[in-house]
């Protein structure tokens, strides 16, 4: 049976930043819905509110107003502790700068979300190696990030995003720090994950990258642009 609950449901979400005397509305009422198994790209120039949206979707920040349901759970007003748990269980992050810890081997980087979930060490290792094999790095388990190429490092980061079997994979400019060959590899890997039934949300300013997604959401001045504008 297919789960019909949307993975993401935003209802009139706003975010206002207060810096001294100024208030900046980064999001001015965003509503959107993403279903299980979708591959969605969020596009917009810098300053559009794209990053703010990503932070809220990633449960790294909470909205000023409006409601956010993540896999049916209302996360709009959660405290820091509850948000940490939601991030751990439901979201796999892929960052532009990979954000691997240089002192740890590949599998130790990958197992980190599981250790915060309280999974035992033996099972963590097993699942981390599984995830590394999934991204084609089964022979790099004991390598440190410094011994891997940029593309390989991003694969380790993808393995880390997969290892806890999250509801949503959130990729923030995943190819931004890679050469075009590695970038193509990474995009192909994301495609594979989508084909395997993962829900992916890709945040980018690059139209070519966004083009691989099923659906593109454009954001401008803190609002989602109407579909008509998309056609142009």
């Amino acid at each position, binding site marked *: 049976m297919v789960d019909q609950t949307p993975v993401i449901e935003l209802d009139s979400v706003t975010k206002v930043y207060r810096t001294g005397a100024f208030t900046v509305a980064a999001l001015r009422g965003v509503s959107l819905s993403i279903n299980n198994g979708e591959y969605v790209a969020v596009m917009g120039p810098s300053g559009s509110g794209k990053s703010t949206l990503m932070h809220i979707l990633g449960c790294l920040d909470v909205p000023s107003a409006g409601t956010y349901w993540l896999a049916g759970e209302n996360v709009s007003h959660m405290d820091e502790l509850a948000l940490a748990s939601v991030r751990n269980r439901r979201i796999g992050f892929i960052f532009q700068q990979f*954000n691997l810890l240089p002192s740890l081997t590949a599998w130790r980087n990958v197992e980190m979300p599981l250790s*915060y979930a309280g999974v035992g060490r033996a099972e963590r290792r097993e699942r981390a190696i599984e995830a590394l094999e999934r991204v084609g790095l089964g022979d790099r388990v004991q390598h440190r990030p410094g011994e891997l190429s940029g593309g390989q490092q991003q694969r380790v980061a993808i393995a*880390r995003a997969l290892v806890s079997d999250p509801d949503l994979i959130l990729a923030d400019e995943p190819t931004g720090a890679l050469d075009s060959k590695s970038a193509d590899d990474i995009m192909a890997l994301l495609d594979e994950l989508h084909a395997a039934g993962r829900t992916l949300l890709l945040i980018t300013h690059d139209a070519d990258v966004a083009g691989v997604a099923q659906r593109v959401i454009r954001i401008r001045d803190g609002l989602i642009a109407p579909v008509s504008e998309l056609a142009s």
Partner: protein
Amino acid sequence: MSWLDTLRTGLEAVRTHRLRSGLTVLGIMIGIAAVILTVGLGQGAQDQISSQINALGTNLLTISPGSSTSSSGIRGGFGSASTLTEADAAALSSKTVAPDINAVAPVLSSSETLTAGSSNWTSTVVGTTPSWETVRSRSVTQGRFIVNQDVTDHTAVAVLGSDTAAELFSRVDPVGQTVNVNGVPLTVIGVLNSVGSSSSSSTGSDQDDQVIVPMTTASQRLFGSTALSSILIQSTSSSTLSAAYQEANTELLALHGITTASDADFTIASQASLVTTATSVDHTLTILLGGIAAISLLVGGIGVMNIMLVSVTERIREIGLRKALGATPPLIRRQFLLEASVLGLAGGALGAILAVVGAALLPHVIGYPIAVSAVASVGALVVAIAIGLVFGVYPASRAARMAPIDALRSE
């Protein structure tokens, strides 16, 4: 995340920054070693003083002449009066007057130059009675001690301290030899056992460098004075020491015709009061040195805080990442606290080792014993961990408060 995982993560962080961790540990290590060593030095000196004072005899009271008051009302210093006599000593020996006094030894002493053949030596000549041996808990290793007959007959005999004997008669058996004091030839009849007390000034004269002569020989043939330098009293047991003190005090006040105790022309000091005085001086010194050492420990602690703050700033991205992956603020705080206490523990353990090594080597250089106690070492370890924790609290809570986005954004 389990404690074990947190500990592993903390240890990895310490290991990753080897040089920095090493320098931080060094600060704590020096502080801990300094504290253990200074406390050990103070303890060692106290032990030495106690043993030296105990070597003077057990359950001992010393009566010294008090001050004399001139007709114009000016009081002299203590010991300026010649108020103690052999009659006082004899009265205290009476079992009916003082049932808690076991033995009494009058002492008439003076520093004199001794000559024997071509060698000469300055030492303390002590005129006393046979009970001195009991009161002072001494014995002779060669020959015999003076007996009552010697006192009665004013015999020209002497018992030498072991160091005195060695100085005067290095190659021959001292017993039977002659030693001259103030031109009076005395026959050496015995040598005292060595109590091993050094020439430390804390206990007064050297117990191994003295010459014991019969009381009467000293007063009539050597010094020409009968005023006693002191009277030594031994109580029957340690529990009767204060009773013996009371009896001696009452009896002497009565004998000297003094009605108000504050006018007493003598003072009675117990060994315990000597120990107390000597150790309290030493104690003050220990506190002073320990205080300086504690400041170095404090500086070490501030070093831990400094390094942890640097570590937090430098690892903002790591903290952000860990938070994004599901680490809660308490977990982050716990991780940094654990790191800080690992630094403290390592510093403490190394400092304790350094102190033990120092305690073994330093006495050869400085000539003082250092007593490193297990209690002090364990205490120092606990303090070291506590320092890590206390000075780690601020950096750790800074790390815990960090918002994950701010942390991730930082380049």
